[in-house]
């Protein structure tokens, strides 16, 4: 199963993850 997030955000939004990285619920995905 997969979850796709689509969202509008200020252009300076930055993801805080890498492709292929393991992640847990509540862990930072991105921030301004």
């Amino acid at each position, binding site marked *: 199963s997969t979850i796709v*997030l689509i969202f509008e955000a200020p252009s300076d939004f930055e*993801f805080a993850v890498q492709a292929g990285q393991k992640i847990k619920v509540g862990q930072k995905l991105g921030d301004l």
Partner: protein
Amino acid sequence: LFKAWTETPTKWYPIPIAVGALLLVVIQYRKNSRKRNPEVVLDQDGVEVVKLKGPWQVHVMGALPLRNLSRLWGYMNSLQLPVWFRPYGFKMYALAFGCNLDEIDPDDLQKYASLGDFFYRKLKPGARPVDDAILVSPADGTVLHFGTIKDSRVEQVKGITYSLDALLGVERPGTPTAAVKSTRSDLDNVNDHDFANVNGIEYTLDQLIGGQNSPARPAGGTDSRSPSPSGDPAPQKFGEQVDASVNSEANLTDTIAHDAGVARDMGVSAAVEGSPVARPIARRRSTSDKDVRPGNSLFFSVIYLAPGDYHRFHSPTAWVVEKRRHFVGELFSVSPFMAKRLENLFVLNERVALLGRWRHGFFGMVPVGATNVGSIKVNFDQELRTNVRGRRPPPGTYTEAVYSAASPILNGQPLSFAEEMGGFCLG
């Protein structure tokens, strides 16, 4: 034949270098032109028609009865296991798929009656600390891909894209598609207590989106909240009144406090204790990257849940879900192996698009089903039924429900940071 095969001499002739070079140029040109002009077929509304594309393995998968297999898998895994076997069986499963048994709730493995139960396990309170960021992960898993959306195309893997409109659906008012039910736009011109007529079925506006005469929200926290009666394909769903009575003043107070918290996290100064008329954020209907606010962009992120992962999903931010669109589709595996080979994988598969808004504008979350986990649950949507037997609607169509009645103040289903939203079940 054998003699001819073995004894016929092979004569090699040199070909001019120019011919070989020309051949390479032609091959390269065809490859490039295919990349530049993907075979995008549009329907009469200009929406991309999604077809199965990929190598032969993909077409073999497409020929299999994946939905039936998925339901059979779900049935088998719902069978009760002998109590004595459960600890051994689940420990073996945990060892094979890397589950952490220390964090599950309850931790007594005998209490999980079936593999399906264990698969949909809960975590102990506090097992997942929530980061103080504006966006957190909605699930345990692996980040497959992320980035910005350009020209309404979402990148599945490097170089392969799919249409944003095909993923989330587009509103097609007036299109006589049986599977597409009422949307807010159908109702914007309908007065309170009027009867709306969509697809030949009548119901009151109050029944559909909730009004002053409609029952208030249910008690017992967010899990028991019901959407307004949804646009489900089954006609008998219409007119059916969801039990949404308030049982106690205390629970109503909790609910209002929850909504106020979400509004505060969204940066909204809503009059939550006042009259339910505030609609503090402009509602945005379009998901096109051309329609985002100045200075904003559309972003995407894809998280893959492996079989051993915790399979419930949580709210990645404080937001309000205005509607859901349920797309009945295939149930291909969504493993990274398939994602690299099957184009439009996330558009072909069964999925539930939850659409709403957060403090920066549009926000959408799309749980996508797969062969082994075809059932998607949404806690605040008791009407939703996924991976069910029956005639398949035309590709690209969806059923829609709105959550206006869930919170008249925020005009949707408010969700706070990391609040549990639902999950994936086996089969």
